[in-house]
């Protein structure tokens, strides 16, 4: 059914369809609407779940960890400082191979405090072992959460999946979303969670034991393999979803107007919408330009990205986060993927922009393209700075 839904409502509605048994969250802007909607569903009996109102994000993640270890489907959501506060637990959930799904309503991190959108928060978790999927719009946010459980709960994966949704830009914006009418169809796509090892009084196991130097390396190797090998499962989840629900927004990556393109803009999340509008206009004007959408940031789809970019001249990477003391994050990884495969014909330029909710306008994209095509190997240069402000003391 087509509905006009706020991003947060779309997300909470898709979570309802996955029937989690334990939900736990701590309020933080811009995640709040998601968990408010879920609380209401529990209060109305529309979702039969325990909603545990915790005193912190650390405990929210811990509650879902404990519940997940009992073999039930779980959900949490957070943003920014909340995600950083959860970080320790997310690493732990991944290490313990528990299929928790969480939404990150992407938001800038302090200081200065900012409630507005960028991707610095989820980027900080990129080495945690959690799968990271990034939604472009509300429809994809809806579909991606259902796919997230399918991926997380695959016996070969058994990892947390973080669905990244741009704060405010998606969470607080209304769009037309086609929702699934029958929960039975979701149940068919997503069978009940069936974990091999759970906290069960009839079959006791010890979880989270001490890993001495003699076993730790192998444990982390298996974790590393699990997330690397999840690529094919992410692809399957997207394809199966398309078959059952007729919706497809890409799997690991998605390409847009990339045939015969010389220049490609690479980005994640909601900024892709603006970029595609600009690219449409430039295409009409005869420019050979396209868009590469990164849908899965972890596992990093290096082969797929290289395959998509290997014949183009310029890759312009929009960075909504920065590795301080290094530079661009996404551009660095793309350059590394190309280098590993000995492809040196692609000029990769990464620009940091849109931090802390600064709008990325169509004009910014036009200006960026003109600038970037004349530059080489830009590693996370800040773009769109207000020079007047730079002379002031903060």
């Amino acid at each position, binding site marked *: 059914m087509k509905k006009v839904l706020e991003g947060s409502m779309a997300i909470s509605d898709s979570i309802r369809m996955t029937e989690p*048994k*334990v939900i*736990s969250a701590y309020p933080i802007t811009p995640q709040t609407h998601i968990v408010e909607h879920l609380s209401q569903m529990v209060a109305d009996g529309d979702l*039969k*779940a*325990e909603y*545990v*109102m*915790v*005193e*912190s994000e*650390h*405990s929210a993640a*811990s*509650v*879902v*960890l*404990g*519940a*997940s*270890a*009992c*073999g*039930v489907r*779980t959900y949490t959501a957070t943003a920014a400082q909340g995600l950083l506060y959860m970080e*320790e*637990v997310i690493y*732990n959930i991944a290490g*313990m191979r528990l299929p928790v799904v969480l939404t990150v309503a992407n938001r800038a991190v302090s200081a200065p405090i900012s409630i507005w959108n960028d991707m610095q928060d989820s980027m900080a978790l990129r080495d945690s072992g959690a799968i990271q999927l990034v939604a472009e719009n509300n429809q994809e946010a809806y579909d991606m959460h259902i796919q997230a459980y399918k991926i997380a709960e695959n016996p070969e994966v058994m990892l947390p999946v973080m669905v990244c949704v741009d704060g405010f830009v998606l969470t607080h914006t209304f769009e037309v979303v086609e929702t699934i009418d029958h929960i039975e169809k979701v149940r068919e796509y997503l069978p009940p969670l069936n974990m091999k090892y*759970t*906290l*069960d*009084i009839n*079959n*006791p*196991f*010890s*979880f*989270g*034991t*001490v*890993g*001495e130097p003699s*076993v730790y390396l192998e444990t982390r190797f298996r974790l590393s393999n699990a997330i690397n090998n999840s690529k094919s499962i992410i692809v399957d989840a997207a394809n199966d979803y398309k078959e059952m629900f007729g919706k497809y927004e890409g799997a690991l990556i998605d390409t847009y107007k990339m045939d015969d393109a010389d220049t490609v803009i690479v980005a994640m999340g909601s900024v892709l919408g603006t970029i595609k509008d600009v690219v449409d206009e430039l295409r009409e004007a005869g420019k050979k330009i396209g868009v590469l959408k990164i849908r899965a940031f972890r596992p990093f789809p290096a082969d797929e990205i290289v395959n998509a970019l290997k014949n183009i001249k310029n890759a312009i990477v929009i960075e909504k986060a920065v590795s301080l003391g290094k530079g661009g994050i996404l551009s660095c990884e793309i350059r590394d993927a190309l280098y590993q495969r000995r492809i040196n014909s692609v000029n990769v330029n990464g620009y940091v922009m849109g931090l802390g909710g600064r709008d990325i306008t169509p004009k910014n994209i036009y200006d960026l393209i003109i600038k970037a095509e004349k530059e080489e190997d830009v590693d996370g240069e800040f773009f769109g700075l207000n020079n007047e402000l730079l002379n002031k003391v903060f």
Partner: protein
Amino acid sequence: MLTNILTKEDTHKQLFTMGHTGCSGCAQSMAVKLIMQVLGKNTIATSATGCLEVFSTKFPESSWNIPWIHSLFENSAAIASGIEAALQITGKKDGTTVLSQAGDGGTADIGLQALSGMFERGHDVLYICYDNGAYMNTGYQRSGLTPYDSFTTTSPSGKISFGNNRPKKYMPEIAMAHKIPYTAVASAGYPIDLQKKVKKTLSIKGPKYLQVDVPCVPGWKYEPRYSVKIAQLAVQSGLYPLFEAEYGKITSVKKISKRVPVEEYLKLQGRFKHLFKNEAGKAEIEKIQKIADENIEQYGLL
């Protein structure tokens, strides 16, 4: 009587088995064994990072014959909350005890927020704090439950210091302030009293807090054979009052049967040996005696 001695096979059938790597004379492992005897097999346990977790679950071995989980240092109570919620929603809670365990640091310092949240939300969880008065697992550093004047590696005694210069945090009172159904303080020196209190928790729904005094051989610096004796002297001197409370009100106290001066308790332990060197140390012992006297008065221990 030989018949009273457990065989190796018998001990392996216990819910917390032998073979762990706890120190000789470890009172915490004694307490855990006594507690598990009462709680029985229908128990799911969490442990915070700490001695118990490290010495009982060195992969691929585990001393736990019940489902057991360790996650992190500060979240034992939150993990237990999640387990309890999962059991409630799946209809498996009845007849299953959720046991949340941590040391004094994992309870009163880094884990206090998660513990307070668990209390306030009213989870049906038994929380046990094994109090050995410092961060023993990391090498005897001071915690909020380190007693006054105790030497620890981060509150050492020195030329101008008598060690830890703050009194022990009143953790049971913090639990009681949450008006939870049951709070109790027990000691590894009094196993029957400990087991009686654990048994009582089985009949009470909601959050329960039990703090157990567990002397630590390397941290307190005494001979392993004195673990029980030192635990008893803590009670008999008035330094570790044992009591029960319901909904914030004390309902029973364990009376001191043979009162001893605190010196009897202090002198057996290396962590207090700096108090026995000069006159200034004597004055410090007087201060500790005052703490005991105030406890005796406050809790009506005589």
